[in-house]
């Protein structure tokens, strides 16, 4: 059973074992540094692997600009929100930050679906290219998410699941932005569904990983 004297003893032990600690830098600066590193890696990959001529032709369409803005802003804002939410005293309202750009992303993709409704061809509903998008979003998100989780964990967040979900949304947004440089056609209805499933998988996986890690931390197996 616990008592005030136990608390006194605990304080004595905590103080006796207190080593100097390195303060975390402001969350906005930490987010900016991580985003700058990712921007360098993604830019290099685009310059080396993407067909920029095809992209330039597609970029004439203002709808693509809207979609790029939506995905990129969602990625950046969700990552900033994750860094803010990882600290104990920051408002939970930070989780709302990426929602307007997420709405823009969904609306721009949805408009594209409306205009390029899936044609039912001789092979049925075409899924071939969508499967590539699915692999692309997951393939880009996994290394980004792993590096983001490592950086976010420095803050030892008290509620890791919302932080992880926001980080997952951020990396999925960045992956969807990069995808546009390797995507020689507008998004179809099937694409939109596949993109949504890929993003949901990334967000759910990162959140589930953090939840499991938190449970393991609270309940040691002996």
């Amino acid at each position: 059973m616990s008592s005030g004297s136990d608390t006194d003893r605990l304080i004595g032990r905590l103080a006796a074992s207190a080593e100097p600690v390195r303060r975390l830098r402001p969350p906005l600066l930490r987010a900016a540094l991580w985003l700058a590193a990712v921007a360098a890696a993604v830019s290099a990959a685009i310059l080396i692997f993407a067909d920029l001529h095809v992209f330039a032709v597609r970029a004439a369409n203002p709808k693509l600009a809207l979609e790029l803005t939506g995905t990129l802003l969602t990625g950046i804002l969700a990552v900033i929100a994750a860094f803010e939410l990882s600290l104990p005293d920051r408002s939970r309202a930070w989780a709302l930050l990426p929602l307007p750009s997420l709405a823009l992303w969904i609306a721009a993709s949805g408009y594209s679906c409306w205009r390029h409704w899936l044609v039912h061809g001789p092979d049925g509903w075409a899924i071939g290219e969508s499967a590539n998008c699915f692999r692309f979003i997951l393939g880009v998100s996994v290394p980004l998410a792993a590096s983001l989780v490592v950086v976010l964990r420095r803050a030892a967040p008290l509620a890791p699941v919302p932080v992880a979900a926001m980080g997952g949304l951020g990396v999925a947004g960045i992956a969807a932005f990069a995808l546009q440089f390797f995507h020689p056609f507008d998004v179809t209805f099937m694409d939109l569904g596949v993109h949504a499933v890929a993003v949901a998988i990334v967000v759910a996986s990162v959140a589930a990983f953090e939840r499991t890690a938190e449970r393991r931390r609270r309940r040691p197996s002996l």
Partner: protein
Amino acid sequence: MSDAAATERLWSELMAAAQDGDRAAYERLLRAIVPFVRALVLPQHRAGDRAEEVVQDVLLTIHRVRHTYDPARPIRPWLAAIARRRSIDALRRHGRSAAHEVFDETAYETFADPRANRSLEVSAATEGLSEAIATLSPPQREAIELLKLRELSLAEASSLSGKSVAALKVNVHRAIKALRRRLQGGEE
């Protein structure tokens, strides 16, 4: 400057010094904030013992995340957020364990079919477990209480008890073996 503002500033300065490794400042800060933490925790945890456990959990968490405090920001919201979070965690833990405890006034009845009495035997075994825990040596009982009943992590249990992680592991392992032996012996 008001008293509250002066206290806020003092706590913030003490935490900044603690982050730089000043142990005396850290101890002073922890002792100063205990009443503030208790005031936040007590309304949610009527049982005094449980409230004190939550206060200790809050202190351990403050220790673990003290590098996240920014001395340029007020310290009370930072402390209050940690206290509320740990308090909610404790309520959830308590809710989970309460969900396994059922008040059944007909539990004293016995039934003609022996299979129907099995749940009563299980309840009796649970009571036996509490008695068996009471017979453990003090280090083993402490390890079981901290790690299994309060569900603290090894690091937290180590900070709270002053025992090393290895010693806690050994004690809890021996305690479980002793309990198993005693409970199985009781059934024979």
